[in-house]
């Protein structure tokens, strides 16, 4: 059964801007799917619609065979934003246990799970620190631990490493793969880094802007478990090239459709 099923989805914002048009996508269990595209292609909007944080204009979104709203009410997914969005007044441990408190877990189970999560993201020993005492990369790991704490079947990530430096980003990519393999969750990952998308994913969904639509889907047939060495593999470069060409094709198409005005708007 597909974890995410999107059929005939359109999103038109109040001002009349068409953010997404004709989106059809199915994401299977244990997949790692990246949504990639230039700014304004609606990839974050699509992620928010899957999470029922905003409503589509037309079309249906199913998560675990239920409407997205029901899936949200059932806490079927965890979400990680570009900023960690940790609560300053809570310690690291208390931040991770926030969703568990809301799901009315008792204190003992909460504490056990928090310890488990601290080990998973390798932050043991930082339980009683406050968020502002951690580095950006550590904060984002807390945010991932919080999203995974209640064991959701689906993890939605909106450019989670976009604000981090390249070194931290590559380390966290490896960690995320390890976490994905350990947790058994299905991942939907928004990014605008081609290398990151190829390195992490089982499938890369390439999107193009104005209006946002899916222009290509590329299956990544690199072996698992992935190590840093894969970044040197010729097949890795081929796939990166394929995604890059798909992205350029998408924006060329965009230029042809919209004429000279759109060309001027390109940076």
């Amino acid at each position: 059964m597909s974890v995410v099923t999107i059929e005939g989805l359109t999103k038109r914002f109040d001002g009349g801007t068409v953010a997404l048009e004709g989106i059809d996508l199915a994401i299977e269990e244990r997949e790692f799917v990246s949504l990639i595209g230039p700014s304004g292609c609606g990839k974050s909007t699509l992620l928010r619609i899957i999470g029922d944080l905003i409503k589509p204009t037309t079309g249906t979104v199913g998560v675990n065979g239920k409407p997205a709203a029901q899936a949200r009410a059932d806490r079927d997914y965890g979400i990680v934003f570009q900023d960690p969005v940790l609560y300053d007044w809570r310690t690291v441990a208390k931040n991770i246990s926030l969703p568990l408190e809301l799901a009315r877990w008792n204190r003992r189970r909460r504490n056990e799970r928090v310890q488990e999560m601290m080990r998973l993201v390798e932050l043991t020993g930082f339980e009683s620190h406050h968020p502002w005492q951690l580095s950006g990369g550590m904060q984002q790991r807390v945010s991932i631990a919080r999203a995974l704490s209640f064991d959701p079947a689906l993890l939605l990530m909106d450019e989670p490493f976009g604000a981090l430096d390249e070194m931290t980003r590559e380390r966290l990519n490896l960690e995320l793969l390890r976490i994905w393999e350990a947790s058994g969750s299905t991942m939907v990952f928004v990014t605008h880094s081609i290398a990151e998308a190829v390195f992490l994913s089982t499938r890369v969904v390439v999107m193009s802007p104005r209006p946002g639509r899916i222009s290509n889907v590329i299956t990544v047939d690199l072996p698992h478990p992935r190590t840093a060495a894969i970044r040197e593999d010729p097949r890795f470069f081929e796939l990166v090239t394929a995604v890059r060409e798909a992205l350029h094709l998408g924006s060329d198409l965009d230029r042809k459709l919209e004429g000279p005005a759109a060309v001027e708007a390109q940076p």
Partner: protein
Amino acid sequence: MATIAAEQPAGHRRAAATRSAAGRVGMLLLVLAILWGLWEGYRWLWIREGWTWPFVVDSTTMPHIYDILRQLFRNPTSGAGGDILLVQLLHAAWFTAKEALVGFALGASFGFLLGVALSQFRLLQRGLLPYVVASQTVPILAVAPIVVVYLGSLHVAAWFSVAVIASYLTFFPVTINTLRGLQSTDRRALELMRSYAAGRPSVLWKLRIPAALPYIFTALKVSATASIVGAIIGEAPSSIQEGLGGFIVNFNQYYSLNPENLWATNLIAALLGIAFFLVIVIAEKIVVRRAPENVA
């Protein structure tokens, strides 16, 4: 693991804290000395040159600071017996502080609850907020006697009427800032709560209120000093003699004979206000856990 700024050795941190505290006390003394110098310098210059603008300077309009301080250690009622002025004023300050404290507690609680209610019900906010604002345009001097007479007819103790008057000045900043704070919650933090399918009470209790605390404490600082002004003003129409308000009314009548008495009373009232303010600052340090750069 990465090292963290907050994890310096404890000894260094303590030494740094002591240094910064010493620096602050030094700064305070310096500012006091400068203010003292300005007062006496102004006084000296205006008297020497005989300037009369904006007002005539003499020992009645601007007594020497040391005369004011010396007056604290004298008995203001020239007859034998009775305490020195400082002891009398401290008793009065204690009395007023109790009224102000009860008024502050009433006003702050009411103000907070009103702010929460207004934030939760948009219709209530639209209907009620104009009247909340209007309540503060009515001069407290006009409201005070009404409160005293009304509560007096219900056989409520006079000091409690004063506390109610103080609470009238206290609640407004708390309501406005609570409302503002509850409405300025980070959008993504709200989305996060939505993703957890959190109900309105949980969002309020676990996110909106903790996030609004810096706003609320800003209001509490304003209200803490306002509650003392309210208590002092409230004492006049209640004919309460024991508080600072009673002393001010009394010394006002004999100002031309003994201006130092009124100035000394003002000094004690100001110190009481500062003490209230500091209590809130300390409470804020304990309660509000925020990144250092986010503390208002």
